[in-house]
């Protein structure tokens, strides 16, 4: 197989509050022989909030990020569901609206850039499933996670709206019964746990403005996984991770029930199965202690 190579859009979280997300992405890419060229020029995608304030500005900044991936002639790979949504949505809107694309490009021209629409955008989860291949991951597993019941937590912005995400995924999955993360858990040797909340929202994006709503959604998610006998949870989204890992105290108070489980990034789970060390994967950076390794 030709070596896989992507332009890595890290987003902000991997550089700040989830350093372990960055560490584990690099460790796993290294194990799998995937080359990642970091887009160091990229700006924040606006995290689905900048667009509420200034939609056009959000489009211009996201188009600029994609333009840098295009300069490398590479597919852009994201490691955050919300970055994935905002970037894919920008691409979709510009590719389907010539007038808007021209307006955005008029701005990008001021800094010598152009958005052409030539780079695809995918999330690292789908890159390793669709491009690298689950079967090959399975073959490379050296420490199967066979003693664990693992609860997948998909995160909204990878599976909804499916119309948009399916434009980029080679094997589209249903927003109501997604399988990618479950399949990955099984490929790593674990047992994937089924629970209703696995496709629901963690509440992250309303944490400041609607704290009770956000806390209840977090609480329901962790409670759902606990009731389904999960040993830990796994998510492809660092924002879900932050919410489920750091906010369980508020969630427990809102729910009136103590909820807490270790929550791993998808990359950390794969990394453990591939034999990376806990230190390489940054497992010491979690607020809810990862005590099983």
């Amino acid at each position: 197989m030709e070596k896989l190579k992507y332009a890595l859009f890290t987003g902000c979280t991997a550089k700040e509050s989830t350093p372990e997300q960055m560490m584990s992405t690099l460790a796993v890419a290294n194990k799998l022989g995937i080359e990642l060229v970091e887009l160091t020029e990229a700006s924040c995608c606006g995290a689905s909030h900048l667009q509420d304030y200034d939609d056009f500005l959000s489009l211009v900044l996201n188009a600029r990020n994609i333009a840098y991936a295009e300069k490398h002639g590479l597919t852009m790979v994201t490691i955050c569901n919300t970055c994935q949504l905002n970037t894919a949505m920008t691409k979709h809107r510009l590719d389907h609206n010539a007038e808007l694309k021209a307006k955005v490009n008029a701005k990008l021209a001021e800094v010598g850039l152009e958005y052409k629409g030539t780079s695809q955008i995918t999330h690292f989860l789908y890159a390793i499933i669709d491009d690298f291949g689950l079967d090959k991951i399975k073959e490379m597993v050296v420490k199967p996670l066979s003693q664990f019941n693992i609860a997948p937590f998909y995160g909204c912005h990878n599976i909804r709206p499916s119309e948009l995400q399916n434009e980029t995924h080679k094997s589209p999955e249903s927003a109501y019964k997604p399988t990618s993360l479950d399949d990955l858990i099984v490929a790593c040797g674990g047992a994937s746990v089924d629970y209703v909340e696995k496709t629901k929202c963690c509440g992250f994006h309303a944490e400041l403005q609607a704290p009770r709503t956000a806390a209840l959604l977090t609480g329901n998610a962790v409670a759902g996984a606990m009731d389904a006998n999960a040993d830990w949870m796994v998510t492809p989204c660092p924002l879900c991770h932050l919410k489920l890992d750091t906010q369980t105290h508020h969630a427990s108070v809102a729910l009136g029930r103590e909820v807490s489980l270790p929550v791993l990034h998808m990359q950390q789970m794969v990394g453990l199965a591939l034999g990376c060390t806990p230190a390489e994967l940054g497992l010491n950076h979690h607020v809810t202690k990862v005590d099983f390794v």
Partner: protein
Amino acid sequence: MDTIKSQQVTFKVFRFNEETDYLPYYNTYTLDVTHEEVVLDILNRIKWDHDGSLSYRRSCRHGICGVCSIKVNGKGILACKSRLFDLVEVFGNEITIEPLSTKRAIKDLIIDKKDFWDNHAAIKPYLVSEIEEHPAQEHLVSPHDAEKLLEADYCIQCGACHYSCPALEVNDSFFGPAAFAAAYRFSADVRDEASVDRLHIVNEEAQGVWDCVKCMECAEVCPKEVNPIEKITKLHNMVFEAGIAKNNVATRHAVGFAHSIEKHGLLDEGELVRYSEGNIGVLKHVPVALKMFAKGKIVLPWNMPKADKLDEIKKLIKSSSTVKF
């Protein structure tokens, strides 16, 4: 052309009669389903051939009246529009049929939609315009202006989005996606004169657009592709453009991104929380921040990373910004 013409499917159907039952229960029916059948056909067959007491709503049978909406394996659908075979492809051949909201069930699949209609009414879902009693000609809307509605007028008030919205599920005051789509539909109409009034209504904390958790469920579920979250974003934009955005945690949270990106290219997470909450409000986040700090999850201001070519980002922010706060 489907190659399989029929298959056996087991239906678990929610049953409850508020007049006689304490608790709901499920009846199971196994039927041979043909590839042209929609969910409503199955409900009809159960009612006509197995149990005449099964209750559900139906009317147009053409996906335009919105009354037949129910949930199948948790997914909101129009019973008259959803093909069984499509659902079996996703969920397998055990299908659970439930009302849109089990806690609002009156009889079987029929629910009390009062909260939906109350929320709908609260946003003034009608055109407000001073018109002459005997106008000489129609009030014409150009195709360009009609396009601004972004098909929000396709909503058939089925409630599928409303009863799938997780924010509404845990916050009774939240207006919900359908009401917002309607608010947008009339506020974006060039003939309407109540747009600012409506924006004030949807700008209120707890009930308004700021309490949406952005889960995209309403966009996913809508059988008419109304895309309510898109309209919610538009309402956010209109609140800023109309200059009525209140200076509060919700608006500052959106605006804070622009400030951060201008300064670092990236989001300064800690500063965003401080900016959004204010110097006093931020204190309630200190306990979590300390735990995060202990785990190396907080970047101190002097270590804040910056994007390369920040000058480019600054220049674009300056020239592309379209609103002020």
